[in-house]
């Protein structure tokens, strides 16, 4: 697979330009923070009426990644739905589409803070997924090794002679990976801000997503 290849506690993985993580040995594709149903939730709460196309767009991209990798296991690393009501409120055609993608694959919904309970759509529902030598969970814990998490929506910036280029990014060090958000309607937290700087080791790298996956030293304030 075209992407940035690295090793986490002995497991070889590839950070894909799309923001998904590919683990060839397990035939496993991991995506984080899909936030499906975000526009519906905003509208329901009396917020802005956003264009209702983000679920379609997110699933389309996921479908492309599944086709390209031929993954047989899919891990959705939490905050897959913008809230549990958004999951129940997904239109029939989108539910069916997800069901079609699930056919012949083992599908794991890891809990996130936005979707902390069981979901109605098929697939296993877990608080976290240990798959030695790594563990998949939504939010990073300190002092652990071999952890793959999401939650923070990290993004990183490259300065190009006066203009800057900001993209969602993987943060990677020898202990952990923090994945970028995969959902279409997601913002990001700069890699150089406090929670991320504190979690990652000083020699961590950021892998910028986009048309190519590019590694840079993780941006920090100091």
């Amino acid at each position, binding site marked *: 697979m075209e992407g940035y290849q690295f090793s986490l506690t002995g497991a070889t993985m590839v950070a894909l330009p799309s923001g998904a993580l590919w683990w060839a040995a397990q035939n496993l594709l991991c995506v984080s923070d899909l936030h499906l149903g975000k526009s519906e939730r905003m509208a329901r709460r009396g917020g802005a009426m956003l264009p*209702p196309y983000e679920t379609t767009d997110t699933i389309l991209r996921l479908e492309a990644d599944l086709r390209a990798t031929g993954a047989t296991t899919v891990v959705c690393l939490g905050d897959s739905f913008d809230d549990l009501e958004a999951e129940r409120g997904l*239109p029939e055609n989108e539910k069916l589409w997800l069901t079609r993608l699930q056919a012949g694959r083992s599908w794991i919904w890891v809990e996130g803070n936005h979707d902390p309970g069981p979901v109605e759509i098929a697939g296993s529902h877990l608080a976290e997924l240990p798959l030695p030598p790594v563990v998949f969970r939504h939010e990073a814990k300190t002092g652990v090794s071999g952890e793959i998490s999401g939650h923070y929506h990290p993004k990183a910036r490259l300065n190009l002679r006066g203009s800057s280029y900001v993209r969602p990014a993987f943060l990677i060090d020898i202990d952990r990976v923090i994945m970028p958000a995969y959902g279409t309607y997601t913002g990001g937290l700069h890699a150089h801000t406090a929670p991320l700087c504190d979690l990652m080791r000083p020699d961590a790298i950021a892998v910028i997503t986009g048309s190519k996956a590019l590694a840079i030293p993780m941006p920090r304030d100091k």
Partner: protein
Amino acid sequence: MEISSKFDHWLTSRNWTLHPHQRELLSYAARPAQLLIAPTGAGKTLSGFLPTLLELEDGTHTGLHTLYVSPLKALAADIKRNLQTPIDEMDLPIRVEDRTGDTSNTQKKRQRAEPPHILLTTPESLALLISYPDAPKIFSGLKRIVIDEIHALAESKRGDQLMLALSRLQSLCPDLRRVGLSATVDDPDAIAKTMAAHPDPCPILFADPGPAPDIQMLIGETPPPWAGAGAAYSVPMVLEQIEKHKTTLIFHNTRAQAEIFFHALWLENEARLPIAIHHGSLDREQRQKVETAMTQGALRAVVCTGSLDLGIDWGDVDLVIQIGAPKNIKRLVQRIGRANHQYNAPSKAMIVPANRFEIIECQAALDAVLAGELDGETLPVGQLDVLCQHILLLSCAGPIDPIALFNEVRRAGAYSGLSRAEFDDCLDFCATGGYALRRYEQWHRLKDMGDGTYTLRDPRTASRIRMNAGTIQDTDTLKVRMQRRRGGAPLGEVEEAFAATLTPGDTFLIGGQVVRFEGLRELVVEVSKRANKEPKIAVFGGTKFATSTQLSERILHKFETGDFRGLPDYTTDWLELQKTMSVLPQRQTLLIETFPRHDRHHLCVFGFAGRNAQQTLGLLLTKRMEEEGLAPLGFVSTDYATLIWGLDPVRDPATLLDHQKLEGGFENWLAGNAVMKRSFRAVATIAGLIERNLPGQRKSGRQATFSSDILYDTLLKYDPDHLLMRIAQIEAMRGLVDFGRIRNMLDRVEGKIVHKALPHLSPFSAPLFLEAGRIPVKGQAIERLVANEAAQLMAEAGLKIDA
């Protein structure tokens, strides 16, 4: 209406007499709409308030009588002071209050319960007032509206918002009378049509324009440089003029230029003359300090930008200096009017050309001022994003009846041509989002009540809608503060995008001092004074104005007729040399020069279409050259020409300029362009699709908010004909892209292209090689650039790439 004896006595006691236009305007007080055009210093404001003061003199009116709207908060405060003097001295039973973004909440609440007789406000505060359910009560009894500096409002979305609000007020108070006060403008009829309740007539009263200004170009022994816009070379001349005059205003076209010039002035200000700086990016306290010092006569000069264009009374200014070509004749005239605030005495002004070409432009502008000719853009019709915001604000006040509202909106001049379909699109957007895909039916923002009216589904939405009101676009800015002086006054603000490019140790100019960037702390840019390096330019705000069509025409006319009067010898020599080596550009033809230089081939198009359009032309032509395999490498644009360089010579420029091919590529190009995204962001914010960044909201959960570019990309992919996409495109075409002027230029020359294939560069193309702002042609280049940068960073950090 006649002046009362009490008033007459007061005027006599002050030794004042009314100007003829003030007396005349009083006699028209009963008209439903009236426009007064008068130069600065002609007592416009008193003219506007005379009928009000007289009508309120007997103390019988209860509640609000007159609403005064001005574009500046500061102006409202200024007027309040000026009105209080006659009210106190004549002991009139009149209460005057202002209501702006700076008014306290308690004060605002009280105003709604007990409105004053005269309320001074801004379009934004008025839009909020009509969004309250008790609006009919607040405005009951309202008789007059005075719109000050209406010329400044009429051309913008703020004007649209104001006129829509006035339509609502007219429905609440049918016998409301409107008076507009305007500086000299090119098209008074257009303003009159905008301000009246359609189809009421709006007669125009012209005050005596006063004597012609005393205006000249300031050029000395040293010629200006060949390129650039800063005019640093003129600092000694300008200092000399400041010494000779009491108070000088020095206008610049951009904030960054004002900062740089101010810095340069102080480096040479050996006499320590008190000189200050004033522009919109400076902190409010700092600005107020300068304003106070100015009114006290404590300053000899103020370096400023458009923030001082509008009429606060500044006392004893006896000289105005414009640095750089004014780009626009109307703005020049209005700035000149800031000198000698006495009606009947000529204003004194000087223009400093920033480079060789600007000498010609300045001379053309001088000719225009003396000929009394002005320029202006045609007023756009009412903007639909503003209408969306208006509908939402009204829905906060109570149920909306679409038929009644449609009719009310069409009574605003700018919206008199609004079609029912356009109105319905806006209403649908407000109610459901207006998407081709119908989704979440049960969560619509406005609910159809079944009797034809619409109402807010969730009343709590009202406060969000109000918080999002207004049409002024603040780009995201960050405060700048001295390090270790938290709680100390901030120095000012810089754009977030500019702050993002800073690395610790970088230096930039703000408030006239060079500061060193130390770091970003909780969204505050922390700086120190440890700066001895040359400043990196401060790129905050500051639009680059394009030379107006009329001014460009005047320049071309000079070339055609060979009228070189007023120009210094070194300029006429330069023009003669161009004539010999190539040819001078003309109005009916388009001059294109091609020539080799070093190992590159160059092409120079003298379109005289203004900076923005020339920039767009550069993008479109290089795109066409890529299609033709001519390997363009980059281009640079000024107000009059675009220079393109590449690997191959262009043998037949005419094919590149093919009308159809240019237009064909245009729409696709525009859709992916940053300018479109910027327009979309502005439109979506005004229309209420995205919420402004509110204070306090920014710190928490940054990852929960996402950029408007994502919404734009999504709509482009799934719903490209959405209302907001259509509005954004119209705006981008008119604004920074300025495609209209390219089209006009191509129409004007009708394919008559004069191609000069030269052995080397020409006198006219030479300065373009010195211009800043060269734009590389990207294509695949950006990806290579990003990859190289990434690889270099990894190598520097000693990290291995194992992909």
